[in-house]
């Protein structure tokens, strides 16, 4: 009977390839089993109606999981997705700005503004879909692997009372979501600028046919520091992600935070205090503009760098690290 074929097909097409043949056989037997002897077309129709909606029947025949991401991981999935999308949207204007700087110049001002906004939207659209796809794939894989390490308390063992946090978040020790997210955005920007567009950091001078950029850094020397700078940025990203996971200060987090601070500031000091890192031309041009001796500029520059290093050590290393420990102790 044709109608049986159509019904069976409507059920089995909803199943995995490997199950289809076997379910089809079972289903045809079942239909046959329900039909009376010497059945008519009307009997067949009645039987199929009794078996019910083919989609629901297929559901009952299915052995594999019904969801891409199960309830155990779903909440984590949503919050990770939210954070990633916020980072994408917030970094869009700056990333677009960078890509426009390196692109061919456009003719008039209006065009530039329009291009800028169109490209921001394009960037958000493209990057948001990428981010969405990757986060979803990651969680779908985690759901299939179904390891106990993916479930709180993430130790791979049965939970015990000692896994509970020492304190519940309070005004005194909690880490808001905005700080780490802002930090992630700036770190990504840092990685992009130093990794891909270091020539854009510098003095901008208007010429008749566009801008002339005098790089601040000696690009060859900078390239040698790049691996260290990227490691430092990567560690900073890790700390931000840990902050988003823990949502409050604890001893472990404070120790990691302090260690990463010391490392990053160490890299920064080694980087800034190396004189060959700066482009001589940059100093010479400033001296020309101010009509003074380049040696004076170099000297002043050195003092400025020392100032930056001192402020970085004081606030970045000491104040931030200690504040972490103090908040963890509450």
């Amino acid at each position, binding site marked *: 009977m044709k109608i049986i074929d159509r019904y069976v097909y409507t059920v089995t097409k909803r199943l995995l390839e490997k199950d289809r043949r076997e379910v089809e056989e*079972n289903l045809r037997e079942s239909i046959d089993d329900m039909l009376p002897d010497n059945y008519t077309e009307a009997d067949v129709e009645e039987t199929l109606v009794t078996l019910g909606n083919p989609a629901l029947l297929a559901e009952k025949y299915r052995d594999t999981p019904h969801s891409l991401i199960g309830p155990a991981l779903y909440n984590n999935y949503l919050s990770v997705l939210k954070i990633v999308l916020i980072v994408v949207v917030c970094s869009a204007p700056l990333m677009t700005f960078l890509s426009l700087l390196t692109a061919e110049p456009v003719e008039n001002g209006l065009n530039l503004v329009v291009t800028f906004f169109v490209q921001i939207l394009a960037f958000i659209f493209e990057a948001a879909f990428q981010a969405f796809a990757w986060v979803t794939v990651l969680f779908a894989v985690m759901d299939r692997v179904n390891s106990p390490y993916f479930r709180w308390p993430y130790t791979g063992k049965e939970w015990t009372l000692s896994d509970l946090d020492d304190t519940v978040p309070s005004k005194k020790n909690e880490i808001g979501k905005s700080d780490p997210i802002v930090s992630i955005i700036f770190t990504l920007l840092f990685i992009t600028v130093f990794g891909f567009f270091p020539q854009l950091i510098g003095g901008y001078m208007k010429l008749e046919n566009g801008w002339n950029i005098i790089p601040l850094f000696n690009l060859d020397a900078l390239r040698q520091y790049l691996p260290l700078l990227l490691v430092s940025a990567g560690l900073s990203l890790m700390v931000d992600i840990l902050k988003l996971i823990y949502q409050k200060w604890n001893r472990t987090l404070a120790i990691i935070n302090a260690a990463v601070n010391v490392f990053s500031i160490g890299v920064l000091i080694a980087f800034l205090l190396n004189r060959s890192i700066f482009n001589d031309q940059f100093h010479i041009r400033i001296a020309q503009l101010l009509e003074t001796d380049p040696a004076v500029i170099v000297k002043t520059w050195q003092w400025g760098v020392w100032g930056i290093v001192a402020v970085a050590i004081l606030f970045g290393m000491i104040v931030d690290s200690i504040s972490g420990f103090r908040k963890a102790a509450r």
Partner: protein
Amino acid sequence: MPEMDELFSIFDTELKRGTLTLIVLSQLQQPQYGYSLIQNIAEKKVEIEAGTLYPMLRRLEKQGVLVSDWDTTESRPRKYYQLSPDGQELFRRLKENWARLSRNMKEILGE
């Protein structure tokens, strides 16, 4: 409470889910084919839909709880299902558990 009926049907389905398997197992101590099983169970005033029963029989056979055999002696061949030895053991234990559960429930609900 306008969603009362809806809510009731959710709880009712949950309550019956496990018992349906137990009913099917209880009827398969002797070999039976699917349609006769539906009729037997209906006689006991329990509704079981064909669309639920046939996939369940297939699953139980895959799990090794049931074994099936074709009877070709009658006018048309039919597939007969029966408890496997493991299925017998499973049924015995579930039945015991049910007796305990229903005693407990009677006590709790009778309070």
